[in-house]
């Protein structure tokens, strides 16, 4: 095991309001790490700092060190960071006017990769990795991304993120808008994907965290209260605040 993401003394602000108060964490390569905590605790802000999405908010900025694969992401162009670190959001957001094929190929085309046979290969590989290929292979260029079901749209977004071959995939509540079957497919997918890359998933669903992640971090009021193996967090956490949260005694 190695460290895919190393975060040191990470602070983030919205205007003058400090949302993260110095986060330190080392995220293991080829594992899924869950980030849990009550609304407003800073968990989404935290993962948005890992691909420099946080700074796209007006007046938002971050300080500290975030290394992906040993490279400081604040010392490289943001576009390069987002190639290394893909992201999937709570609500599936395929490009509605594009075909399924073009949705997956969009990132590659933006990166200047236009050769047809390369695109064909990557689109197929990405859709297979996202466990969507069999369902859409016959309508790749006939149907738009928006015509798919919610669960399929989310897997399409995952395929789009995978197409640029990221080292890390950030998932911000990727199944919260999905039915149980689609949720199970996403969770199975996380299990497969972490063989190839590192996953950081924000979730409000603690059962989901316990099912998919080897490690879990509990955030509260902009602090990382506890970070440990998932089974430790959910059976015998070290910090009373973690226990109170996961047992529903507050939050």
């Amino acid at each position, binding site marked *: 095991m190695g460290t895919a993401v190393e975060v040191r003394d990470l602070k983030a602000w919205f205007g003058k309001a400090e949302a993260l108060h110095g986060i330190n964490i080392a995220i293991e390569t080829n594992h899924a790490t869950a980030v849990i905590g009550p609304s407003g605790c800073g968990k989404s802000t935290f993962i948005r700092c890992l691909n420099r999405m946080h700074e796209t908010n007006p007046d938002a900025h971050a300080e500290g060190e975030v290394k992906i694969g040993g490279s400081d992401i604040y010392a490289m162009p943001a576009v390069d960071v987002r190639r290394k670190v893909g992201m999937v959001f709570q609500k599936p957001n395929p490009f509605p006017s594009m075909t399924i094929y073009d949705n997956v190929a969009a990132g590659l085309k933006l990166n200047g990769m236009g050769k047809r046979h390369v695109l064909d290969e990557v689109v197929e590989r990405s859709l297979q990795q996202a466990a969507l290929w069999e369902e859409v292979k016959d309508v790749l260029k006939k149907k738009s991304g928006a015509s798919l079901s919610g669960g399929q749209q989310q897997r399409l977004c995952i395929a789009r993120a995978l197409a640029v071959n990221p080292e890390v995939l950030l998932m911000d509540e990727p199944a919260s808008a999905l039915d149980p079957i689609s949720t199970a497919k996403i969770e199975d997918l996380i299990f497969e994907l972490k063989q190839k890359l590192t996953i950081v998933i924000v979730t409000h669903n*603690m*059962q989901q965290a316990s099912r998919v992640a080897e490690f879990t971090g509990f955030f509260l009021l902009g602090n990382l209260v506890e970070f440990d193996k998932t089974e430790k967090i*959910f*059976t*015998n*956490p070290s910090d009373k605040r*973690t*226990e109170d949260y*996961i*047992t*529903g*005694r*507050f*939050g």
Partner: protein
Amino acid sequence: MTRIRFHQELEDLKHRILEMAGMAEQAIDLAVQAYTQRDLALCRRVLANESAINRAEREVDEFAVDLLAMQQPMAVDLRFILAVIKINADLERVGDQAVNIAQRVMNMISHPVFDLPVDIPAMAGRVRAMVRDALKSFIEGDTELARHVLEADDEIDRLNHEAFSALSTTMQTKPDCAVQALDALSIARNLERVADHATNIAEDVIFWVRGADVRHGAGQTTAGI
């Protein structure tokens, strides 16, 4: 405070297991009383009460499984429900041991009284204290008291060995009272098993409160638990 209903249900589960604990404790008390008084009616009461304990065991299990399935408990709540399920099984076994004792006493009553070299009431007193302390540690979440229960088990094992040795000798040297000696030996063994169940309960309390697994000598040093 959130999940108010769930936490009320956990309290309800605790009340139910304590009701069952009361029945199991009473069964042992009655069985020991039956031995000291050679009282056939008390023996029959122990036998009659067994079905109520068995029924309570099923009800507690069902309730605990429902909570696991419906509430997906975490951390201390998960450990509590797991501990209750295991304590429930131990209490049912305590009830079984009481029945075994009562049956042996019924057999003894059918034979002449004989002065046996074993102090069953004294041993029973210690075992009942262990059961009482184990349950008190559960009620109060008191791991220090639970630790004392674990330590007390060695003394019961010693008393059982002594009883075995003394009664074996009696059976060899005085064959005319072999049946009574064998019954007393079985009762001592039943009491020793009740102490084992009290020990299990104490271990489950430590698991519930501290998340520490101290079974089978794991973490030989229980100090600091």
